[in-house]
């Protein structure tokens, strides 16, 4: 019984983890059709923000929850202004440009902090006991944060004026523009928000995974597969993709080992995209956000 609870907990954590690393990408891709290949590096920058801030004596919670999204969000806005806005509607070009950006960021961070960064940021919460098993309290916290984050993004899109305008722009940019919406500004804000969410995720994961200049590479593929499998809807798509792929990965990793866990994740994604080429939300929950 304890084992079932412990495995279930890991399964939910695996799903939350996937949702957390994918949400920032989903916002940028879902709203703007921009494939951001520097997404992994946004996560990495969030992690570095936390490491640098805590080494300078800043409270770790403040660094993770406030500083990381703020710093990476700002970087996102700058990137959008300097690079992305010239390339709207040119998917292959944005792909190349953001890939270049990703290499640039890795190179910059490596030359500033060195190839291997000493991170002594430890998960700030103790362990929780599940009968004979123990798990990290911080993982429980991350599950909670993921839920809150989804709720916050939902509220922003559904309840605020900005959300309404943003959704309108997403559905039909020309019409919104004709109605007096500054789509240019909306894009900038959306990109910044997407980057901020990525930064937050990166900051939160830093104590679990450590921080290296190249850590982004381990996230990017999974985040992409999740977002593409999820389909057009930002929240429902990411959630559905994470539950399906994270679930498959977790179950197979526990039954057979991590190698087949990864294989099962990819096989599930391939089968899914063969059956539903537009992702889960291309067929189900089509009206959702």
């Amino acid at each position: 019984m304890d084992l079932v609870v412990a495995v279930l907990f890991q399964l939910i954590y695996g799903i939350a983890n996937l949702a957390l690393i994918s949400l920032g990408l989903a916002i940028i891709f879902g709203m703007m059709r921009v494939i951001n290949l520097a997404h992994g590096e946004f996560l990495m920058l969030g992690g570095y923000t936390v490491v640098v801030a805590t080494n300078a004596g800043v409270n770790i919670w403040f660094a993770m929850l406030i500083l990381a999204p703020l710093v990476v969000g700002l970087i996102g806005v700058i990137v959008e202004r300097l690079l992305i806005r010239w390339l709207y509607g040119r998917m292959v070009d944005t792909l190349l440009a953001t890939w270049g950006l990703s290499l640039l960021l890795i190179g910059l961070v490596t030359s500033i902090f060195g190839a291997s960064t000493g991170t002594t940021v430890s998960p700030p919460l103790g362990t929780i006991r599940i009968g004979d098993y123990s798990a990290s309290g911080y993982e429980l916290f991350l599950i909670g944060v993921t839920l809150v984050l989804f709720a916050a993004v939902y509220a922003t899109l559904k309840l605020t004026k900005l959300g309404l305008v943003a959704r309108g722009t997403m559905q039909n940019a020309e019409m919104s523009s004709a109605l007096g919406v500054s789509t240019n500004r909306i894009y900038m804000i959306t990109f910044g928000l997407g980057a901020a969410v990525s930064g937050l995720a990166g900051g939160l994961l830093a104590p679990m995974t450590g921080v290296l200049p190249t850590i982004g590479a381990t996230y990017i593929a999974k985040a992409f597969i999740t977002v593409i499998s999820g389909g057009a809807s930002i929240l429902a798509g990411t959630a559905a993709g994470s539950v399906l792929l994270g679930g498959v990965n977790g179950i197979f990793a526990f039954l057979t080992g991590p190698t087949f866990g990864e294989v099962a994740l990819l096989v599930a994604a391939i089968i899914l995209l063969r059956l539903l080429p537009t992702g889960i939300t291309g067929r189900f929950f089509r009206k959702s956000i």
Partner: protein
Amino acid sequence: MSFSRRQFVIGSSALALAAPATVGRAQSDAIKFASILDLSGGLDIYGAPMAETTKLAIEDINATGGLLGREVELTMYDAQSTIQFYTQYATQAAAGDRAHTVHAGITSASREAIRPTLSRFQTLYFYNVQYEGGVCDYNNFCTGSTPAQTVAKVVPYAMEKWGKKVYIVAADYNYGQITAQWMQKFVAENGGETLDVEFFPLDVTNFGPTINKIQTAKPDFVISALVGGSHVSFYRQYAAAGMNAEIPIASTTFGVGNEQKLISAEEGNGILASYGYFEGADNPVNTAFLERLKAKLGDDAPVMNELAIRSYEGAMLWAEAVKAAGTPDRGPVIEALRSGLSYDGPSGAVTIDPQTNHCNMNVYIGELQDQEWTIVESYDNQPPADTALVCDLNANPNQSTFLFENGLAAAGID
């Protein structure tokens, strides 16, 4: 500065004329030493310190007048943690630069990618990394420690200390797979039991399901051969789940990338590891070496580990062989090395074993305490007994194979 078309034409024809001179330089005076290591990408935690000590070795050689009155010229290539670059740069170093020796490779996968190339171009090859053993190649000197030198020491030590039930976690490529087989063999030989073996692709960062399985299996200790930056997460997550207080860890890889600096003191305390070198190695050469390194690099000096020290010692072994042979040419240098050449380095005496082209060396077991290794046991002059089981270059020098490619059973070891 203005730049007319005429000047451009003159300039480029001068370049064209200069080109044959570059080709001719292969005959020039300098002795060429090429290094191919991962200085960026996921494996740079290993490559960066190796590059520092390689540079230091060449500086030291040149500071004492070079070799045979000639300067040694170092060319460094960054393979960026990508196997494809290894083959490309190995070809460049051997066929383009005409290097006299190539010191290259970190992962076993990279070694196997370039070993055939360097063999074909008859370019002397040094692999200065601890690895799973089994290379039997007249042209290739493996100076790092092998499982019979390290795993065979740390397994019984840990079993004595913690108990006989063992859980193995390893990286999913030839090093991890073969090392895991050695671990199982040594666990069985010492009367222990392997509960489970798990392999991880190099980019896995979530170890939650495995930690659950370890909790279910309840081993006396976990032994790890995890590799690379992402796998450091294992030790963090293990500690975050409170496991480090319950089930201790021994490792054959933790520390060669200075992982002890990447996790906090509490997360790492008590981890055991075994290598051919720790900074605490007690000999005057080591003390002098560390002082010199500190003086040169200041606080930026990386912590010295086996990979870094062996890169230095590998270069020095080669230099000694060139001096002994009186020429940098491959044939005589290999003969000089295989005469049982020895070098007193920071790790102690390192001696080439002509039967295998591996090294006899001192081996240490270290325990991690507050991010520093303390040597708890040392063994002098240990032979590469694993490779010696299957490889005899004295009897048949005409070999260039990796005998453990398909595992130990395929090589006739049970």
